[in-house]
């Protein structure tokens, strides 16, 4: 559009980020997932050559439009789905190992819990799966349920929970085993704005505790505030990844927002930039604009090809 190199090549800063911190909580290498279609021999490539590194004690946002392969990536990360190609490492171990999964807490993209259990019973059940001792389990379950405002509801059946309550129960469940990594698939889905802000605070709290968080979200403003780094996916491919600052070009790459000028004054600025051999790039300073332009450009290129 502006005669610049394709964004995919431009914005990969994650390697630089990785050098700073040595311990990688999550590593994805050339991760690919093909789903067989009904017609024989044809595949849907839900994830395509995804390479990511998420250092310990950071918050990583995985962004992308619907159907871009975020949840699929997360399922592979948890060993729920087998990659067609590529590798996954959780603190260096494969997610097929139960011990690796013990270090990961998972908030699924929808409340897949047994409706006939109560909140407390669900946590008890998951606690048993985690091999927790009874007394510890009881203590921790009550603590978590209280922390997420479910103290009053914990003896009610999940069938009677509201969407937001189920989501909060999901948090409690994910934190039950005190994992080092939290994988949150759309933690703010179905949560009201106040609740969403609480989720943000909560994730910050997790970072302070030294945990690593991988989250998918469509609330880009929140992600921008919250995450240390993000990756933007479309159609299974990673379009860009890196720290927020790097992606938005605060720092080395100078891209400014110009405020307080009139239309004609702006025209002069543009002319000036062109005289100097540059260009005025209308990329926004916020993640949302970046996201939109990256995705639409990618879709266009896909359309041309």
């Amino acid at each position: 559009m502006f005669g610049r190199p394709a964004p995919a090549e431009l914005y990969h800063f994650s390697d630089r980020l990785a050098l700073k911190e040595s311990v990688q909580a999550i590593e994805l290498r050339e991760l690919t997932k093909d789903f067989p279609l009904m017609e024989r021999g044809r595949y849907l490539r839900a994830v395509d050559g995804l390479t990511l590194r998420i250092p310990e004690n950071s918050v990583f946002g995985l962004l992308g439009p619907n159907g871009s392969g975020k949840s699929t990536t997360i399922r592979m990360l948890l060993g729920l789905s087998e990659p067609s190609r590529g590798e996954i490492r959780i603190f260096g171990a494969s997610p097929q190992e139960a011990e690796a999964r013990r270090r990961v807490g998972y908030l699924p993209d929808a409340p897949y819990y047994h409706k006939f259990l109560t909140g407390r019973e669900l946590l008890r059940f998951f606690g048993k799966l985690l091999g927790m001792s009874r007394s510890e389990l009881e203590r921790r379950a009550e603590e978590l349920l209280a922390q997420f405002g479910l103290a009053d509801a914990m003896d009610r059946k999940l069938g009677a929970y509201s969407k937001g309550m189920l989501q909060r129960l999901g948090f409690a469940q994910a934190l039950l085993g005190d994992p080092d990594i939290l994988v949150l698939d759309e933690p703010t889905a179905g949560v009201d704005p106040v609740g969403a802000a609480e989720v943000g605070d909560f994730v910050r709290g997790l970072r302070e505790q030294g945990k690593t968080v991988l989250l998918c979200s469509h609330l880009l403003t929140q992600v921008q505030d919250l995450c240390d780094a993000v990756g933007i996916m479309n159609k299974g491919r990673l379009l860009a990844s890196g720290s927020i600052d790097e992606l938005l070009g605060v720092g080395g790459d100078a891209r400014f927002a110009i405020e307080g000028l009139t239309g004609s004054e702006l025209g002069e600025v543009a002319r000036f930039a062109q005289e100097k051999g540059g260009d005025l790039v209308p990329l926004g300073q916020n993640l949302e604009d970046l996201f939109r332009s990256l995705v639409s450009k990618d879709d266009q290129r896909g359309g041309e090809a």
Partner: protein
Amino acid sequence: MRLFLLLAVSGIVSLVGGLYFQEFNLGSSELRFIADFGFGAMTLLGSIVTVVATVQLLYGEIEHRTILPILSKPVSRGEFLLGKLLGAWLTICSFIGILTLALLAALWIRQWQMPDLGEEALLEQGAVSSSGVLLFALMQCFRLMVLASVTAFFSAYASSSLFAVFMGFFVWVIGQLRGSLDAQWGEGIGQSLLKTLTLLIPDFRIFDLGAYAFGEAEASLVSLLGLVLYAVVYAALYGSLAAVVLKNREF
């Protein structure tokens, strides 16, 4: 669970039905009649409980995706399956247990209602031995354990619960018929082909030990252990196959 209760009730109702129908039978083999009804209930309703419970326990988790958070915990798929199978078996055993108690109670009540069962009557049908009833019930538990494993195998593979239920009952019926099948069909190639095919399916009829309860056959420990071993081997086979399928399944 509601289904479980429903079936338990219908089992008991069928026993009461047995009590009622023996009226037609001129009173001469009441106990035996009642026992037959009880055994029938254990077999037919037991198979329904088994298939439905297993499909619900296993395929239900897949269908409602409740399996996702479970498998994301440090539990292997094999462990998950084993837990589900044990759960199904527990359900089966308690169901059979309820029916057995009801049957023994019905027998006991009838026996008590006709205290001077003349020698003649005793001679005719022989009393129904309660140890025979217990033995029958025990063998049902083992037979249905095999059925549960078979159903688990199909549940792990299925993409609809109807398929799993259907296949469970299909194997059940074939397994029931198996014994009569290879006696049935002609000679030559057809026969040997059929013989091979029948080898593929567990034989469910051999667990029918009704005759022991009526004192018509002697139970030998060796043959009982043989039956148990047979059941365990088949349960393990289909359990392992189910595990293989589950390991390769996407969620």
